[in-house]
């Protein structure tokens, strides 16, 4: 599934760029993130607990940052798998100065597999949007 959108962060691009790569910020902002542990250059192991509606599940995954082009763009990859299925998201983040802050636009692809893919069709779009919004809300906070 393709996703795209943008979010305004009240920070100059350099800071926005940094914040979005700061493991502490990521750990706090990724919905359900329970731990984020560095395993390589710009690569982290993540444990997530997803809880939404009555659905809940633990995911083991990775976060990777590539194609760094500060402060303009980078690529963020998040993947996780657990008993209820797996998900993988990959997106390009672009930073454009706007007013006194930065417009962060994203464009990417979300893949979902396993049981969640089969039963959640009606909800995947809405859920992805919600998670992204929550993520940015926390980054901005």
């Amino acid at each position, binding site marked *: *599934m393709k996703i795209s959108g943008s979010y305004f962060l009240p920070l100059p691009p350099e800071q926005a760029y940094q914040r979005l790569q700061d493991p502490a910020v990521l750990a706090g902002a990724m919905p359900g993130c329970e731990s984020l542990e560095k395993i390589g250059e710009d690569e982290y192991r993540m444990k997530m607990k997803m809880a939404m509606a009555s659905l809940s599940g633990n995911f083991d995954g990775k976060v990777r940052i590539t194609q760094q082009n500060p402060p303009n763009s980078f690529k963020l990859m998040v993947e996780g*798998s657990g*008993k209820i*299925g*797996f998900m993988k998201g990959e997106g390009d983040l672009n930073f454009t100065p706007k007013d006194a802050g930065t417009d962060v636009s994203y464009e990417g692809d979300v*893949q*979902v*597999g*396993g*049981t969640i*893919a*089969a*039963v959640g*069709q*009606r909800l995947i779009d809405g859920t992805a949007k919600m998670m992204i919004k929550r993520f940015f809300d926390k980054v901005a906070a």
Partner: protein
Amino acid sequence: MATTTITKTEKLVGKRIRRREDPRLITGTATYVDDIKMPGMLYAAILRSPHAAAKIRSIDISKAKALKGVHAVFVGEDTKNAGAVPCGASLPGLRVPHHNLLAIDRVYLVGHPVAVVVATDRYVARDGAELIEVDYEPEAAVADPEKALAPGAHAVHPQWADNVAFTFHQEGGDVAKAFAEADVIVKQRIVSQRLIPNSMETRGVVADWHAADRSMNLFTSTQAPHLVRSLVAQILGLEENRFRVVAPEVGGGFGAKIQTYAEEILLAWISMKLQKPVKWIESRRENFLCTIHGRGHVDFYEIAAKRDGTITGIKLKIIQDLGAYFTVLTPAIPTLSVLMMPGLYRTPNIQADIVGAFTNCTPTDAYRGAGRPEATHGIERMVDMVAAELKMDPAEIRLKNFVRNEEFPFPTATGLVYDSGDYSAPLKKAMEMAGYDQLRKEQVEARKQGKLMGIGLCAYGEICAFGPSPATPAGGWESATVKIEPSGQVTVLTGISPHGQGEETTFAQITGDELGVGIDDVLVLHGDTSLVPYGIGTFGSRSTAVGGTALYYALQDLKAKVKKFGAMLLESEDVTLANGQCTDNKTGKSVGFKEIAAAAYRAMKLPPNTEPGLLATHFWEPPNFTFPFGAHLVVTDVDRDTGNVSIRRYIAIDDCGNILNPLIVDGQVHGGVAQGIGQALWEQAVYDDNGQLVTGEFMDYTMPRAHMMPWIESGHTVTPTPVNPLGVKGVGEAGTIGASPAVVNSVVDALSPLGVKHLDMPLTPEKLWKLISAGSNA
């Protein structure tokens, strides 16, 4: 209900008699596989791949094994020598992938079985399966047959880079000439989408091995118990006479239970390993993923026609989505489409090519109609397109091209011989019931007001009563045994395996009429290989035409013997068997059926050259297929604002030869039409680019419901077949075959003022709305 007096008051065949199997079904007292319980029985749960294509790096079963209540965990390596899932179809050059019971090294589709956990109850088994840790290395997958055939596509099976399982070519007549001399050539790509059969009961297996006497009892929800027995016994190296397969009550199959599945072999193998009975019941989610799918055609049609509407040639290229593996009939299904590609038309020149493509999807196989709905959909759409091109009425072009009554038996360009027919009769009857001319006038008026009203026709033909043995993978004959018990009650044992078709009723009707006993005096048994003679099973609308005929002939033998005993008791030479008694044609004296039966078993005295007892068995080999036909007419209205299709009238005229029980025929037509409308309007198995089945539950896969069905006005014409003495052709699949083209033709007709010539199924409101809004803007 059952009485001790044998009575007979009325002719049974031809009557609307209620199904005798229904009381136990509607009171919830039928026994399905999941109702079977055995002391010490264990339960199996299967862990399945969430990926469509992946290497298996490792499997860690230690946690599952350690779980309290888990008896055993098996993975692919363990079952490596237990055999493979069989494919019964053979085609020249066919590439048959080895279909392991459990994945070894790689998985090829979502739902691919990876490990099985056997435990004291099904909850622990499931918990155990969740504790297995599989390390997958996912790969790109391919879930679309056309993409699979494109250069550079992911190879489903690494050894076959082009994803081609087979190609097939057939020609008849002179196609090149027909196209060279055509006045018009009409081309269209037509998709018959993937469908999920969804029987009400999912699959299920109980395997019960007895080492001491080397015997296996396998209870399985199948349409073909003897075929399962032969295949599983052979695969596991067991003795067939000690291998009993029982199909208890089977809650629907629609073709998806003809196959011998991995779980049947696996459970038998596990029961032998653990020396315990083991049960596995498929979940609905597994059913969506792991029981076969149907259709999955992309067809490329070209039709050559003369200006007067004579169809002179058909070219067809089929791309068949086979899925990752084969089940029993997978590659054979599209060849049935080729056989039926001329439909009911005389067209002497045909050319067909099939490319069978592997995809990382569930295998396709026989689903109600199996190959014929695709063929009928294609030709019936194309005939409409030719009519539109020539500005002819769609009824007129059909009537012009039908095989004529005097031409039967009619040899087709595809090598079949159509048995009998009056092809224009159902179409004319449907048009008469609909008031066709009036409807067309109404349509003209409706269009003036901007309304989208459509009238769709379909004239379908099908190939049924599978079939002559040389043309059927496992033999196409059928068997029946009839016993008259000493009490006079009659037991019929049939080799077919009904699971909703109502043969417990129709076979009792045939028996009652032949022996002159009442319907309640007859019991029809089936589905237990230790009880009934070897049989082929129930599929391909064959049960009554082939199994009923075997029964008919067994009854002739038995009738002769009963009459011998009757004549002996009456001291007569000329007797009639009717109305529960045997009557001397000269004196009018009679002896009751009961007394005759008793005498045959008591055997105080025997007729000359006659042995005691009353039992007869007959195996019948059909000389040809049968070819039922019919016509559907559908009136639709399409809402401009939303694209919603509403079916205003649905007329279904069927000619299935002689009708044994009109109630059951109507029921079969109604159910079939529901499935055909389902394909036309709603159903589709959708995979995403990564091979995930995204319509993997009823939340997203639109099964038609009762309230979505139109009122079906059904009617019949009767053209008996000369192929069997009952004159019956088969009706199990007719409704499905006729429905999808009739509905689509109707909706295309509705949208034709917008320039729409063709629509692929399903006709979702959004698809239509987009065309309507684009059209009205234009």
